[in-house]
């Protein structure tokens, strides 16, 4: 009898069944198995693989296994030590001292020291890293009295909880001896990263894949379990689902699959589809108002527009219920800062019409009050859907909306550089602390052209002051109270309306073990992850 693939498969299943009956099940499920290859889906090509230069989930998903941060998010969102073993701040908040781990080696064999931290902070985080430049604006110097100590000196108080939470994303350390004295943006290590992490970079095939293999000299003894990690670039989302279903990839995180497939795979017992392990990031669907436009300069009109859109209906019918109505710029998934407020503008068509009438925009010919242009900023597949939904909702209260279709580069320059919009809709990402990437949406004085900042021609001195005070408030409780006040103020003024609050979803094959154990797991190091044989 010829042995075919099917026979082999069948006998494999039989063997597996025999093993299952012979051994107690929990033992099989628990004992980590060494070896194996984990394949991870990525939806877009990354230009560079250096998290000290580029803060973006696409960069983290790859490089966080190769390059390590000072600290990371542990279970329950607690800050855990990685390259920094301990830290302390002086009471005035102007000096933060990190004690660094000793005996750590770069992948090229050189020792990791405080000089690397100093270099990364001063030359890359402060000068080039997006969001890092803002975070480290008042960082004057990093002192290195000995190879295991890095002292950060700030000219204005830096809240320790803000710094630590931000450093999970903006605190990756790169080797000084590789970058120093070179043109940072052109350094070859930007696409062939060298770090201290559990996996060593092997190969980057443009448009296809990145491979990293086990680092045998990793400082966590006995880790990692996996032999290799492969990241595959699959730009077509439906094709990515097919790759997951056929076992070509085992993980797709950060909503890398179409919403319809996320919904379908939730009921498929070969996969775990959940928000577990991706709760470190939350995003909102936004509606930004260009207040230079006469009608929109009146906050009653902005509030009326918010009242006219039935957000729960949109969530249920367009987003498969994957989210909830937002209460403001600080999401309920951020326990440290959420002010526990209610949804400010529930769907209320009558109230919307009343506000518009009060503002002096009565229905004219054909029931039209005025017309607006909306620019969708295509962060995800739901953005054009929401633009259409807003168009239809507003037509109910007498506002005609025209949708301007642009791709993302075009939309960003139209909205943030040319101010050529009335309404814009996209995503706001909340990154653990309002000071990281949320308050820039409201603070005035952001230069023209900076995307995802206040470019609405709106300004409030009170809000500016709240933002600045909170950013340098060292007392945790006071800081929280300032942000509660900030939420109240911007919810009333509404220069930008946060409609939905949505977690990201990750789809993971059940072959993968020890996965999504911490809040930013897909952007973590995966040192203790292992995989069951297919």
């Amino acid at each position, binding site marked *: 009898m010829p042995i075919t693939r099917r026979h082999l498969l069948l006998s494999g299943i039989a063997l597996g069944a025999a093993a299952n009956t012979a051994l107690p099940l929990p033992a099989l499920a628990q004992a980590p198995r060494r070896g194996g290859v984990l394949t991870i889906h990525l939806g877009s*090509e990354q*230009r*560079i693989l250096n998290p000290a230069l580029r803060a973006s989930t*696409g960069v983290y998903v790859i490089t966080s296994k190769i390059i390590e941060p000072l600290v990371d998010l542990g279970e329950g969102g607690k800050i855990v030590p990685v390259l920094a073993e301990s830290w302390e701040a002086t009471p005035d908040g102007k000096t933060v001292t990190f004690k660094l781990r000793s005996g750590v080696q770069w992948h090229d064999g050189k020792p990791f020291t405080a000089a690397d931290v100093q270099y990364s902070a001063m030359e890359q985080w402060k000068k080039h890293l997006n969001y890092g430049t803002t975070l480290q604006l008042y960082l004057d110097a990093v002192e290195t009295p000995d190879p295991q100590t890095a002292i950060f000196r700030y000219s204005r108080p830096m809240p320790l909880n803000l710094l630590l939470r931000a450093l999970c994303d903006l605190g990756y350390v790169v080797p000084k001896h590789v970058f120093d004295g070179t043109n940072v943006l052109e350094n070859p290590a930007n696409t062939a990263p060298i770090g201290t992490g559990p996996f060593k970079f092997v190969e980057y*095939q443009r448009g296809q894949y990145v*491979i990293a293999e086990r680092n045998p000299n990793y400082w966590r003894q006995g880790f990692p379990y996996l032999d290799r990690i492969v990241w*595959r670039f699959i*730009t077509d989302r*439906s*094709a990515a689902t097919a790759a997951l279903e056929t076992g070509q990839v085992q993980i797709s995180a950060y909503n890398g699959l179409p919403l319809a497939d996320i919904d379908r795979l939730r009921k498929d017992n070969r996969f775990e589809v959940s928000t577990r392990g991706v709760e470190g990031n939350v995003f909102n669907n936004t509606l930004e108002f260009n207040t230079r436009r006469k009608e929109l300069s009146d906050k009653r009109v902005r509030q009326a527009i918010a009242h006219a859109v039935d957000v729960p209906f949109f969530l249920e019918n367009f987003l498969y219920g994957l989210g909830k109505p937002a209460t403001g710029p600080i999401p309920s998934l951020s326990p440290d800062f959420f002010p526990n407020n209610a949804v400010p503008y529930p769907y209320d068509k009558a109230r919307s019409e009343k506000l518009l009438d009060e503002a002096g925009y009565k229905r004219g010919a054909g029931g039209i009050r005025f017309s607006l242009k909306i620019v969708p900023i295509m962060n995800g597949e739901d953005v054009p859907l929401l633009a259409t939904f807003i168009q239809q909702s507003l037509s109910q209260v007498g506002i005609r909306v025209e949708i301007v279709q642009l791709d993302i580069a075009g939309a960003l320059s139209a909205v943030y550089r040319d101010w050529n919009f009335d309404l814009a809709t996209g995503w706001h990402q909340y990154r653990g602390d309002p000071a990281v990437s949320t308050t820039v949406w409201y603070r005035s004085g952001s230069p023209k052209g900076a995307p995802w900042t206040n470019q609405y021609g709106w300004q409030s001195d009170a809000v500016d002051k709240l933002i600045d005070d909170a950013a340098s408030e060292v007392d945790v409780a006071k800081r929280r109270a300032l942000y509660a006040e900030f939420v109240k103020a911007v919810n009333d003024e509404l220069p930008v309306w946060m409609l939905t609050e949505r977690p990201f979803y990750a789809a993971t094959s059940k072959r993968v073990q020890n996965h999504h154990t911490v809040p930013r797991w897909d952007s973590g190091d995966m040192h203790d992850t292992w995989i069951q044989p297919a």
Partner: protein
Amino acid sequence: MRILLLALRRLAASLPTLLLILVGLFLLLQLAPGDTVDALVAQMGGGDPAMIEQLRSFYGLDAPVLVQLGRYLLRLVTLDLGFSAIYGKPVADVILERLPVTLLLMATALSFAFAAGMGLGVVAARRVNRWPDSLISTLGLVFYATPSFWFGMMGIVVFAVRLSWLPAGGFEEIGSGNEGLTRVLDIAWHLVLPVATLALTYLATYLRIMRASMLEVMTLDFVRTARAKGLGETAVVLRHVLRNALLPGVTLMGLQAGTMLGGSVVVESVFALPGLGRLAYESVVQRDVNTLLGIVFVSALLVIAINFIVDMLYAKLDPRIVTGS
């Protein structure tokens, strides 16, 4: 030698066209709102203005448009295609990495579509208005009318997800270390679905063209003569009709070679193949002007080359068409 001279003359004649295309495209891309730094910032999820300005000057975008164009053309004269913004390395390298995949996909699909389309067209023409003809023509219409991404997705769902016969995507098994024949077979295995998807639509066109021109040629006098001198039906079809009926098909192949470079964007995306089409698409989305112009340059050269070969083929098929004079 004569052919070489002819090729050179052709190339020289197409230089102005090439220049026009490149300059036109360059200016067209300036009209598109947003530049490569906007696209990069979109991917990063934000950045501060100082960093953005720094990046603009890094990519040479702070110079006036005409200066940028001048710089580009000057470099092109020395056959330097510039630096790719997305990939951070020379455009020539990026394109060379991708070219083999696209050429393989295109050549296989085109050959398959041409051969199968011709075959089916001949069968349909010989059984005109009987059931084989109706069947083939209907199938052709279905293939022609169905968008190729749908074929691709259905192929994946049926053959990869449901039946597990074929891989769902990719060019080869990653990190398998396959060498020699094993690697060739592995790549062929991965290309079955994409080639079939890409070929089906084109097959329908060849089929219809072939059927029509066969029917036309069969009514001509010399066919009657051939029959009258006692040739069998097969000999008449193969030696006399087919050869003459091939010309429109060959013309079409020359024309389609160009569209196939662009047409494979969809197939390359659906099957995650690292080809030129996807590269071009990404270059547009990321506003990577250098890469896009480089692709256009290489594609234009390819199309010129293919059309040259087609012209040579004409002469072979029909000696009345004389080359070169």
